[in-house]
């Protein structure tokens, strides 16, 4: 037993920095997806079970667009930067669009009827099931790889860990979008509307906030972030119709970890989960990596369902 831990800690000491860097990169992806959960939860007090498929649609959109644009060429330099931007954009547009559709079809009719919460969960599960199986039918049920947009190579190293270009791309694009979102929610009229509805929908509506529009916009923003994240995820892991399930479950874990409804909490939770998951490689074999993330999920829900920063979309951000 002691030997087990000492030897694993030795691995951890050797590999700490590389694992940390990798963990932070996937953490950015989880954060972006987690925000979709947190925003919708903030205004509707519900988990959007279809968010995994909003993510998936972003992956496919960027895949098809980039395939058409890149063709057989080998982009480099400024082209690569443009193409990454294009991928992010394609993912964001598709994710936002599908999210709005989901709201229209699976949520709004139920809101009109003031259906009980269970009904929303079930119809969102239905939407998720419908979407990924439809994608499986239309796009085939195999893995696709995105065209090569840049040659992944070590860019620089810290503490002996070489930082790959891919990680920089993910962290850069992710951080830019997260900061943008934070500014939007904190400063713009739209952001004020979202926060007002999150705090007290009734009062917000009396004060002239259009609730329907606010809800659609939260789906749109959350979906766009999720879709863009799917592109970043797809660069390394490829695209397949079931690609949404595991990252979305992890992102949900991140959202709860940071305190659901809390935007900065979602970012923090995502980064934390990415790092924990990555470092756990030193202790458990690859087949059980997902078990670590799901165990964190179960543990957080059971022992600290309000998360680290607490639930407060209205006051945070």
């Amino acid at each position, binding site marked *: 037993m002691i030997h087990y831990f000492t030897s694993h800690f030795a691995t951890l000491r050797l590999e700490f920095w590389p694992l940390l860097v990798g963990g932070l990169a996937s953490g950015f992806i989880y954060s972006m997806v987690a925000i979709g959960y947190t925003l919708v939860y903030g205004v509707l007090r519900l988990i959007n079970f279809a968010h995994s498929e909003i993510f998936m649609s972003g992956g496919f959109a960027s895949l098809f667009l980039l395939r058409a644009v890149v063709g057989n060429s080998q982009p480099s330099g400024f082209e690569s930067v443009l193409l990454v931007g294009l991928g992010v954009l394609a993912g964001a547009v598709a994710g936002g669009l599908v999210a709005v559709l989901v709201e229209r079809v699976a949520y709004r009719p139920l809101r009109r009827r003031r259906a009980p919460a*269970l009904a929303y969960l*079930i119809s969102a599960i239905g939407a998720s099931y419908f*979407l990924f199986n439809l994608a*499986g039918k239309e*796009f085939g049920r195999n893995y696709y790889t995105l065209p090569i947009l840049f040659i992944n190579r070590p860019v620089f190293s810290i503490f002996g860990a070489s930082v790959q270009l891919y990680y920089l791309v993910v962290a850069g694009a992710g951080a830019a979008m997260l900061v943008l979102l934070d500014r939007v929610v904190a400063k713009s009229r739209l952001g004020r509307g979202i926060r007002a509805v999150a705090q007290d929908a009734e009062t917000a509506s009396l004060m002239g906030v259009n609730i329907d529009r606010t809800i659609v916009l939260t789906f749109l923003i959350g979906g766009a972030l999720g879709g863009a994240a799917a592109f970043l995820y797809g660069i390394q892991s490829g695209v397949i119709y079931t690609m949404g399930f595991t990252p979305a479950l992890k992102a949900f874990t991140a959202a*709860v970890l940071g305190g659901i409804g809390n935007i900065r909490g979602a970012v923090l939770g995502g980064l934390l989960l990415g790092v924990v998951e990555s470092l756990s490689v030193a202790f458990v074999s690859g087949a059980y990596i997902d078990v670590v993330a799901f165990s964190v999920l179960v543990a957080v829900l059971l022992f600290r369902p309000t998360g680290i920063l607490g639930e407060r979309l209205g006051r945070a951000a």
Partner: protein
Amino acid sequence: MPRWLKHKALGRFFSLALAMAVVELVTGPPGSNETPTAGFSGSFGEKVSFFGLFPVPRIVQFLAFTVIIYFLISLWRSYGDRLRDGVRSLTERPRAVANKGSVRWGVAAALVVIGALLPRFVTDPFWQTAMVEQIAVYVLLALGLNVVVGFAGLLDLGFVAFYAVGAYATAWVTGALPLPPLFGVHLNPFFAIPIAIFLAMLAGVLLGTPTLRLRGDYLAIVTLGFGEIIFLFVDNLNGITGGSAGSGQVPHFSVDVGPLKYVWGLAPVPYYYLTLAFVILFVVAFSLLEHSRVGRSWTAIREDEVAAESLGINPLKYKVMAFSIGAASAGFAGVVTAAQTNFVNPSVFTIYFSINILVLVIFGGMGSIAGAVVGAVVIQTVSMYLIHTPPAGYQPQDLYIYLGALLIIMMIFRPSGLVPSKRRQREIGLAESGQGHMDEVLTGDVP
């Protein structure tokens, strides 16, 4: 947005056209890895026969359908109420008669007789097998999940775990797993029945006790997470479960008493009768339970947990009870599946399976035992029919697209299901009129 687009009738037409385009996609040919756009272009461009007259591209056919359906909807909007009232006045008396206890028992008895005679009329081996593996087993699973989702109002997305416990328990006690059975005795699957049911119920208690404190949506996620953890372990613990290959050595049921020796083979009929007997057993047990104080307490907790607790009802205890009771029928279903197919394998026990069972319960009617049976029989029969004689372009996996759509459609148009439970229907009505405390997740902000 231009003003003419905001016109209501036009808006309706566009929504309908959009919906029809989706229908067109869903029913169209599939795409593939090489040609991912083939599905789209084929869905709209493929030639089909126009009402048996002449070939046209699918898009023309669907536009025609859109116009026809739009016309029908307009008709319904102007005359629908009158039609509905007419139908209601016609069905009022049959309905009142059907609600009588004696009539209900009569119908139930007739169904049992039909069920018992069914193998005499259905002789096609495909359908005989389907009756056991795809219908009767699913009825059992729907009955169990109905206790959890319908009676206790708990959205469990890891229900398949109990089915897996039943199947793996059978494989274990019959000596089919790498893990040696207790005392090294290889039992006949008949003895696996009580053991599997017990272990499934125990799993219900163990899984339920920590998780059932959580409120609705968190419970759904945590059951999903637990389900995945269990799946990953079963899939990887080669020395215990046989890993992803599972085991193909589960023996059939056999009778071996003195001179009487009879091994059930692959022939499905004996399994059918065994399962039917247990279906009847579970239906009777669950409906007694529904109308006992346990059932009333479930209703109370579902409607208003705070008020129920103030009356001395321990919500956790009753929720765990629902989990455990629901697990019982799933555990038995696991025994039948393992013993009939000789086979246990983790690839069956995925989250998707749980959702399939959920569809059966939702479609039939949450909280309605008759609904669970009807939902399972109808959906499974249709899906089997689609496998038996697939329409052009239909792949077996397409079923899940339809099931997903069905969940949304049911929640929008008929949330209480095909054969609604009266209590449930009332509750949904109350929630929608702003009474009751069922929708506290949405509005409640109790510190």
